C-alpha cells in the first residue's frame, strides 16, 4: 500500500518536473500556445469566423487582403480567413483521429508482440516491417486510392501508415520492463496479463508515445493536406487547407494570397507540433539534453 502511494507521488513529481522543464523551453511553449489557439479556433469556429465559410459573393471574388477580408477572398468571393478558421476543425480532427487509430492498433499490436513474444511477436513485427517498407505517404496514397477519397478514409489511410511506429515503441518498452521484478511479483500474485500491461507497462512507455503522437499529429495533418492538394483527399468546397491550396494553385499567377494563407496555416500548425514534440522529448528525458 505504502509503496503504491510513494509511486504515485513519484509520478506526480515526474510530470511536475516535466512541465517545469517544458516551461523553460520558449520555443516549445510557443508551439503549445499556437496549438491551444488552433484548438480554440476549431471549437469556436462559428463564433470567431467573420463570415460563413460557404457564402459566395461573386461580386467580391479574388480580392486581396483588406480590412473587410484580412486574408482576401477566393474565386467565389468566399472569405479566406473564415475558411482557414473552419479548416482548423478539419485538420485537427484528421490529425487527432488518425493518431488515435494508429495509437490504438499500434499500441495493441506492440503490446501483444512484446508481452507474449515468440512466433506471434515475430509475425507481427515482420508485418510491421513490410508496412514500413513502403514510404508512408505512398502507403496512404494507395489506401486512399483503394477506399476512395473522403475524410474518414484520409484518417484511416494516414492512421494505418503510422501503426508500425507505435507498435515498435510499445514493444520495445515492454521488452525492457517485462522481466523486471515487480512484474514477476504481479504475475506471482495472479494478476491478469492485461491488468499488468495496462497498470504497469503502459505508464512506462508513455513518454516516448507522447512524443511520437505529437509528431504523428503533424504528420497526419501534413499527409491529409498533401493528399487533398493532389486531389486525392477532401475535395472543394469543404474548407480544407490542402484543397484550398490546390484551388489557389490555379490562380497562382495573379492571386498569390489564395495560396499564401492556407499554406501558412499548415506550416504554422506543423511547426507548432514539431517544436512541442521536440520540447516534450527534451523535457521527458532530461538525459538527452546537450
Amino acid at each position: 500500500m505504502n509503496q503504491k502511494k510513494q509511486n504515485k507521488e513519484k509520478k506526480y513529481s515526474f510530470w511536475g518536473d516535466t512541465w517545469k522543464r517544458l516551461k523553460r523551453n520558449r520555443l516549445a511553449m510557443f508551439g503549445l500556445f499556437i496549438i491551444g489557439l488552433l484548438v480554440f479556433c476549431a471549437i469556436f469556429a462559428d463564433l470567431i469566423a467573420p463570415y460563413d465559410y460557404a457564402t459566395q459573393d461573386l461580386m467580391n471574388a479574388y480580392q486581396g487582403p483588406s480590412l473587410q477580408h484580412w486574408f482576401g477572398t477566393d474565386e467565389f468571393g468566399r472569405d479566406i480567413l473564415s475558411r482557414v478558421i473552419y479548416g482548423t476543425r478539419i485538420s485537427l480532427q484528421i490529425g487527432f483521429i488518425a493518431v488515435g487509430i494508429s495509437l490504438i492498433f499500434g499500441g495493441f499490436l506492440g503490446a501483444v508482440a512484446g508481452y507474449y513474444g515468440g512466433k506471434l511477436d515475430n509475425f507481427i513485427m515482420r508485418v510491421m516491417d513490410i508496412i514500413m517498407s513502403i514510404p508512408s505517404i505512398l502507403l496512404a496514397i494507395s489506401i486512399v486510392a483503394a477506399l476512395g477519397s473522403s475524410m474518414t478514409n484520409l484518417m484511416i489511410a494516414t492512421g494505418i501508415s503510422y501503426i508500425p511506429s507505435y507498435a515498435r515503441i510499445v514493444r520495445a518498452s515492454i521488452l525492457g520492463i517485462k522481466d523486471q521484478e515487480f512484474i514477476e511479483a504481479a504475475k506471482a500474485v495472479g494478476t491478469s496479463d492485461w491488468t499488468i500491461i495496462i497498470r504497469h507497462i503502459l505508464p512506462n512507455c508513455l513518454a516516448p508515445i507522447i512524443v511520437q503522437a505529437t509528431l504523428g499529429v503533424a504528420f497526419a495533418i501534413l499527409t491529409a493536406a498533401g493528399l487533398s492538394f493532389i486531389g486525392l483527399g477532401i475535395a472543394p468546397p469543404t474548407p480544407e487547407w490542402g484543397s484550398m491550396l490546390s484551388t489557389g494553385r490555379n490562380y497562382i499567377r495573379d492571386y498569390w494570397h489564395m495560396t499564401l494563407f492556407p499554406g501558412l496555416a499548415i506550416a504554422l500548425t506543423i511547426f507548432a507540433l514539431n517544436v512541442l514534440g521536440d520540447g516534450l522529448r527534451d523535457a521527458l528525458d532530461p538525459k538527452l539534453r546537450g
Partner: protein
Amino acid sequence: MFKYIIKRLLMLIPILLVVTFVIFTLLYITPGDPAKMILGQTATEEAVAELRAELGLDQPFLIQYLNYMKDLIFHFDIGTSYTTGQPVIDEIMNCLPATLKLALSSILIAVVVGVPIGVISAVKQYSIFDNIVMVLGLAGISMPVFWLGLLLIILFSVRLGILPASGYSTWQQMILPAVTLSAQSIAVVARMTRSSMLEEIRKDYIRTVRMKGQTEMRITIFHGLRNALIPIVTVIGTQFGSLLGGAVMCETIFSIPGIGRLMVDSIKTRNFPIVQGGVLFIAIGFALVNLLVDIIYAFLDPKIKAQYK
C-alpha cells in the same frame, strides 16, 4: 560481403510478394468496374462482359492474383494500362527517368548542404550560426513540400521571372523542383548531423586525438564526422522514403511527368494496373535504398563489417 548482398536481395522477394498481395487486395476490393471504366458509361452489357473476360476480371480473386504474379515473374509483365492499352512496365519506364533525376538531385543537395551545416553548427554550438540553423531547421521540417513549391513559383517564376515553373529537361527547370523537394531533407540531415556530431565530439577518443597534436579541423572531420556518419546515413536512407512521397507532390506542382504524377492521374481514372505497378516500383526502389544503407554501414562500422565476414 558479396554473400550478404545476395542474401539481402533474396530477402526482397518475400517483401515484394506481400507488398504486391496487399496492393492487389486493396485494389480488388475497390468499388468500380474497370471494364466499364475503359469502355465508358454508354457501353453495352455484352461488350463489358467480353472485356471483363479478356482482362481476366471474371476470375476469382486468388486466380487473378496468381495470374498477376505469374506474368510479373515470368514475363516481367505487370499488366496493361486501361486507358492507353500500353504495357504498364513501358509507361512506368517512360516516367522513371524524371523521378530518378528529381529524387537523386534532391538527395544530393540534402547531403551536400545538410552535412556541412550540421557539422559547423555542432562545432559552434550555441553560436549565432547554430541558433539560426536550429530555427531554420525546424522551419524546414515543418514546411509542406507543396506549399514551398508554390511559394518558390510565386517568387522566382511569377515575380522575378528568372526560373521556369515547369518541365524537367534543362538544369534551370530542375532548380525549383529539386530545391523544393530537398528543403525538408536538408533540414533533417543538418539536424541529425548536428546532434550526432555533438555526441561524438564529446567522447573520450576525441580527447585522445587532441592529445596527439592533431588539428581541430582534422579531428572534426576524420574522427568526429567519420564516427557520426552512421546515424547520418540512416537518416538519409529514411529521408529517401519521404522524398519519394514528396516527389508525388513535386511532380504535380511542377508538371513533371514522373511516376508520382502518373500514379495520381491513374488513381483518378481508376487505372489500377498503373497504380499497382507504381507502388511496386517505389517499394522496390525503397528496399534497394535500404539495402544500400546497410551495405554502407558495413564500410562505416568495423563491428558490423566483422559480422558479415
